[in-house]
């Protein structure tokens, strides 16, 4: 995207994909995981949540995916309710923090699951499964079983399963946490390429400040439990971002700001909790 386009975008903001108003969560048993959160994610944004462990990132992401009901507030997807998800242009995919694969099904069958559940014909779904597996570098593992794969490979299967439906909104909970630095950097780059090619909207959770800066258009910092958004940094570096960006001074500056915010967030949370 060039500067003119960027300027135009800020004049006429793209439509909201995800809106949370006062979304809060108290688990049964009284654990207050999330203070009311207001959040708007617009089409084409790449928003990353970071925060101390146990601060409610997964909880927030599950609420944003409609997987868990908030105990207060409401969530809208493309201005509509959860019942309209899955309509054309409203496809949502979620990558869990754990691989969450069916142990009795082969890799291909695991990836094909969303298409099978939507009753797509094999002739249509098989090429898509192969393409999704190729995207995460697991071509040739179609007939393996999850137990035969390493933790990182299982995670990539679960990413392939999320991509196979060609989602418009992708929610990912620490998807690359179990991977080595090199694979992670490669998948980060692949994810960015996919994001810009498909004009995806992504909400991402990570513990890595570097990954957050590299990937995101915007990073939100959550405080320690109960989580609430305590800071926001727009990463307004141009795309496409390559390895040069990782070593630029701008990159270091963003990381520094996030690191300071995160230190503050952990401190305030600890006092409040």
């Amino acid at each position, binding site marked *: 995207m060039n500067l003119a386009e960027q300027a135009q975008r800020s004049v006429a903001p793209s439509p909201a994909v995800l809106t949370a108003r006062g979304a809060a969560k108290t688990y049964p048993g009284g654990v207050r995981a999330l203070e009311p959160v207001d959040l708007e994610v617009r089409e084409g944004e790449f928003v990353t949540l970071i925060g101390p462990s146990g601060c409610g990132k997964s909880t927030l992401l599950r609420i944003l995916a409609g*997987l868990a009901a908030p105990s207060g507030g409401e969530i809208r997807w493309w201005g509509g309710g959860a019942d309209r998800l899955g309509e054309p242009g409203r496809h949502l995919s979620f990558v869990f923090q754990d691989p*969450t694969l069916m142990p*009795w*099904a082969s890799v291909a069958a695991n990836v094909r*699951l969303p298409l099978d559940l939507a009753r797509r014909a094999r002739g249509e779904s098989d090429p898509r499964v192969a393409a999704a597996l190729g995207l995460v570098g697991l071509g040739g593992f179609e007939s393996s079983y999850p137990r035969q794969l390493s933790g990182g490979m299982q995670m990539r299967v679960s990413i392939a399963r999320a991509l196979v439906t060609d989602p418009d909104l992708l929610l990912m909970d620490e998807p690359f946490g179990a991977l080595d630095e090199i694979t992670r950097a490669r998948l980060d780059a692949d994810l960015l390429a996919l994001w810009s090619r498909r004009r995806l909207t992504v909400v991402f959770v990570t513990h890595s400040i570097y990954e957050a800066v590299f990937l995101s258009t915007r990073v939100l910092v959550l405080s320690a439990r109960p989580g609430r958004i305590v800071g926001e940094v727009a990463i307004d570096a141009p795309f496409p971002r390559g390895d040069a960006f990782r070593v630029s001074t701008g990159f270091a500056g963003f990381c520094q700001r996030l690191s300071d915010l995160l230190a503050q967030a952990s401190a305030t949370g600890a006092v409040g909790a």
Partner: protein
Amino acid sequence: MTDPRRLDLALRVAMPAVIAAAALAAWEALVRLYEVPAYLVPAPSEVARTLVADWSILGPSLVVTLRTTLAAFAVAVVLGTLTAFLFVQSRWIELALFPYAVLLQVTPIVAIAPLVIIWVKDIQTALVVCAAIVAIFPVISNTTLGLRSVDPGLAALFRMYRASRLQQLVRLRIPSAAPYFFGGLRIASGLALIGAVVAEFVAGTGGHAGGLAYQILQAGYQLNIPRLFAALLLVTLAGIALFAAMVGISKLALAHWHESELVAER
């Protein structure tokens, strides 16, 4: 190095065989040494000889007992599985009915069998009913547990992709339940045999030319102890065969994914 699978199998067969051979040899030796009369404890060789000699009597009895056992096992599996599906449909149904399944389990079959035999006209059917009562509980409780033991993450995933109830059942619940179900089958197969033999005992010798229990009772009255032992041996062998069959079926169904059927890595 030898293939660990082969070695494993060889050990599994060889170890119990060595024990059995040693025990039989000791038994044979003791009986001969102290000249124990056959009407007290027959030697293994005597039992084997009787088994062959009396096969025309014992063979049909084995068939009768096995038929009762298999029929009861089939009834227990079908009814038990259906009951389990019913239980997981609604918490209310389970709360209301589960205590009765337990009741069935804890009441000794010898106490119920006379009633069943009085109520059910056809003696063969009555025996099947008794044995099925004994065998059904592990099927119900294991299958129910299995159908409930769905990975919550996978359940959320299926909900997210709007899986229908049928899809959830076929693609998620049944595969999740399979290892528990097969565990239930192993226990139930043995219990069906025990139930059949106990019911035959209760039915007694009156008029009905029956199964192995009938032969054991008859042999006891006649002090034909070698035949009693031979019948007992047949009951035991039938139990082992049933168990092995269940292990085989479970292996066939689960071998490609479930931990219980994977060969341990060394």
